[in-house]
């Protein structure tokens, strides 16, 4: 790779970062500071804003604690099992990730909420589901697979089974091994998982909107959305910009803190040859294995399977409160849901998602191929930081920066998608690029291939799977994106997500359930692929991490 190609790549990436993220955030800050620091202070000092900050921090901290505890326990219980059992248990643990955040919140409310399916059938509800407790609970369920994936990756990368065997052979019992060897080795993974979950929870919009707003419980994301929808008065907009800026600062500060903590633990991989061949694991009690297996199965049933079944039931049943028996079956909800504007919204979403997937793939190439490993890490960090900016704040910033020239154009939603989902494509590709062997290109060149031929014949083929995975993930995530398109859509540019949000606002559960089902199908397909080909699993986990 020549020097000039390198600097061009770096310039492209920096330019895109500036257009997609830096300018919107700067514009957001300018608007928030329109009436000076005192104005910002006043906006943030309002009772509403203070409450939203408190709620966001409270929810994020509790979700982080719950998800990291649960994800860590699952990783320890699942990862050391025999491969076949492990594949099944893994799918059970990550199953909530296969349901879009909005759908998860909605379906939980439908099945476990007051006047929900279980309430009608057996009088069972989860107390406080509509309100702060429910927001924390469902967000923790949604984020636990993320924590699990990060911790499981750390477990296989750092906690070699041999290190635990060595502790056993040194006289340590099971609990002592966990306390003195396994957990200390996992500290970086636990910290990384906590950072990921905290940012996800602080940025989340769909679950607080579905479960918190009806109870008058607002987080920063839902406050921004509500203010934007309810009022066009300029002073309200200034306050909303102030809250969006504050949310951005909160998340970036959290990342800074977690990042510094991670730096201090600086991973110290042991040198020396890697163990080869199959390794035995100490057989654990079969009974204990069966108990953890059933517990995880029960969890997947409550978290994913029952809500999904209830969702199907609600979508297929004539009215609220009726039993989902064949006599009450109807397709009316689907007919009602899929009317003119829905098809248009779906069409918009599919096109936007396809364009975003293609563009993100192209945008990821220079960060991955144009530069060396170290520059790739630095640029990757920039892209990830862009991903961390809260969706609602980013959308408001993009609205301020590009709202006027791009009024009533779907391009403004595309900008938001590219800014947010770039990291997904980049992440998926850079993992594969790190595994490329530089000598392969040299060997191709020494065998008579030109630079482009070498790229086409030995560099891109091993990246094909990663490119496809990244593009597919961007597509799926774009179709189900709610936060930013909910803020940015205008007349004529409704997305599928906007249609669902409006449908849910109208309170027609059957039609919302029908739309939610349609939104879940693509992800479930990915889940089926996961189940069919567990070998692909590490690559996907790398992206989610």
């Amino acid at each position, binding site marked *: 790779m020549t020097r000039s190609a390198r600097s061009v790549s770096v310039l492209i990436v920096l330019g895109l970062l500036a257009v997609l993220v830096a300018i919107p955030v700067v514009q957001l800050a300018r608007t928030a500071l329109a009436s000076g620091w005192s104005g910002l202070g006043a906006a943030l000092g309002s009772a509403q804003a203070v409450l939203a900050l408190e709620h966001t921090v409270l929810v994020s901290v509790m979700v982080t604690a719950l998800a990291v505890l649960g994800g860590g326990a699952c990783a320890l219980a699942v990862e050391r099992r025999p491969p076949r059992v492990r594949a099944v248990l893994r799918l059970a643990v990550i199953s909530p990730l296969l349901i879009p955040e909005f759908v998860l919140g909605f379906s939980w409310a439908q099945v476990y909420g007051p006047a929900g399916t279980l309430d009608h059938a057996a009088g069972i509800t989860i107390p406080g589901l509509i309100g702060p407790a429910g927001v924390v609970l469902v967000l923790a369920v949604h984020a636990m697979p993320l924590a699990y994936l990060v911790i499981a990756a750390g477990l296989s990368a750092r906690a070699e089974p041999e290190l635990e065997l060595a502790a056993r*052979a*040194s006289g*340590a019992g099971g609990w002592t091994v966990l306390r003195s060897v396994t957990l200390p*080795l996992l500290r970086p993974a636990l910290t990384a998982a906590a950072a990921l979950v905290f940012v996800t929870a602080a940025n989340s919009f769909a679950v607080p909107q579905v479960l918190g707003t009806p109870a008058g419980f607002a987080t920063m994301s839902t406050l921004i959305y509500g203010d934007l929808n309810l009022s066009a008065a300029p002073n309200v907009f200034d306050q909303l910009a102030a809250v969006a800026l504050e949310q951005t600062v909160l998340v970036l500060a959290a990342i800074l803190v977690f990042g510094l903590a991670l730096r201090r633990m600086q991973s110290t991989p042991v040198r020396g040859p890697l163990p080869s061949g199959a390794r035995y694991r*100490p*057989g654990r009690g079969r009974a204990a294995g069966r108990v953890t297996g059933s517990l995880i199965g029960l969890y997947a049933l409550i978290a994913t399977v029952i809500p999904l079944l209830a969702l199907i039931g609600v979508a297929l049943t004539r009215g609220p409160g009726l039993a989902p028996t064949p006599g009450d079956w109807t397709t009316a909800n689907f007919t009602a849901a899929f009317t003119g504007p829905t098809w248009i919204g779906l069409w918009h979403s599919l096109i936007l998602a396809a364009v975003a997937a293609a563009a993100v793939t192209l945008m990821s190439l220079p960060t991955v191929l144009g530069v060396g490993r170290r520059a790739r890490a630095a640029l990757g960090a920039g892209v990830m930081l862009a991903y961390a900016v809260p969706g609602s704040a980013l959308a408001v910033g993009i609205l301020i920066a590009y709202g006027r020239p791009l009024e009533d154009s779907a391009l403004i939603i595309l900008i938001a998608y590219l800014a947010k989902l770039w990291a997904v494509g980049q992440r998926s590709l850079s993992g594969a690029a790190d595994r490329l062997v530089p000598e392969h290109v040299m060997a191709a060149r020494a065998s008579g291939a030109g630079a482009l031929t070498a790229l086409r014949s030995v560099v891109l083929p091993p990246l094909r799977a990663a490119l496809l995975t990244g593009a597919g993930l961007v597509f799926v995530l774009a179709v189900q994106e709610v936060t930013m398109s909910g803020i940015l859509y205008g007349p004529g540019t409704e997305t599928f997500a906007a249609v669902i949000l409006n449908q849910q606002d109208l309170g027609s559960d059957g039609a919302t359930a029908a739309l939610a089902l349609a939104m879940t199908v693509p992800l479930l397909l990915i889940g089926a692929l996961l189940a069919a080909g567990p070998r692909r699993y590490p690559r996907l986990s790398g992206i989610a991490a």
Partner: protein
Amino acid sequence: MSRAVTALVCRDLTVGHPGTPVLRGLSFTVAAGELLAVLGPSGSGKTTLLHTIAGFIQPLAGEIRLADRLVAVAGGRRPVPPEHRAVGVVFQHYALWPHLTVLETVAYPVRRSGASRAQSRRTAAELLAELRIEHTANRRPNELSGGEQQRVALARALARHPAVYLFDEPTAHLDAPLRGVVLGEVADQRQRQGAAALYATHDAAEALAIADRVAVVCDGGLAQLAAPAEVYERPASFAAARLTGPASVLEPEHSEGDGATWALTIGDATAVVPIAGAVALGADGSATRWLARPDWVCLSPDGPFAARILAVAFHGPYTDYRLETAAGALLAREPGRARYPVGEHVRWSLSQTWPLDAAQPPSQLAADVPKLAGRSSRDA
């Protein structure tokens, strides 16, 4: 300190998955103070055997006794967990904990045995000084050289004061000079503490040099268990012969003998060759394939057999010749520099030989007699 006479007994040990066992019906005894080398090619189940004795794997059948205590019996009561077995393990890849310093690592087993924090650190520091790596006390594994990592792993095992040490190819990843140092240390420490040791290796020279007895493991079974000289001179099978050192196989046109000496006909010459170790073979112990170790072949003008030199390799202390004979290819080894060029026709004789497919193998091959510690000259 009173120790049991037998440190380790394995009886009918079968390990692996039902239907595809990795180890099949292994039985052997290791006396206190004895060093048993487990010699086998990679993938033969050496690590599996060591991990079974340590308690990481439960056997499908058979039983294990450590220091006269039954620790594992298949299908029986709950096996004793690894932390309650009197074993010290040196892992193949050392398995040093990346988050602990050297001192903390070596103090770990002492602490687990109930010593106070301060006491365990003092003990660990003493051990490090004994192994002459006290300067590494505050380093972490990634700041250590290969030899230092190896010694830390050794110190951690020593700190347990076990009845049996289990070494899993501890020198496989060290260069030759360092190996010598480490091997000396193992022998030294083991003798001082009086414990027995199992030493898994795929290197015949290493096994023969350090062990009191050698267990040749092949295809999951015990091919032979005997003193180093025995497995070298009188291997139980062709496979065992190949594992225990450089081996050439002669297929003479004709062989006949009375038991202690045999007449081999190679080419146009016939010569009488004694059986290795002067063991009497039965009169019907005729064989078609005979073992020739390189040091049993003498190149001299008055040797009975003819050969042509195919290749010469000078190794420093000795020179290897690859010979072409009427009974097959043959490796010969002589001290000093090369005396003959490639292509030269030479004459040779055989100082001893051993039948590789005797119809009636000598009876003592199957014997499993524990050899008590009486080989200190070799140990030192």
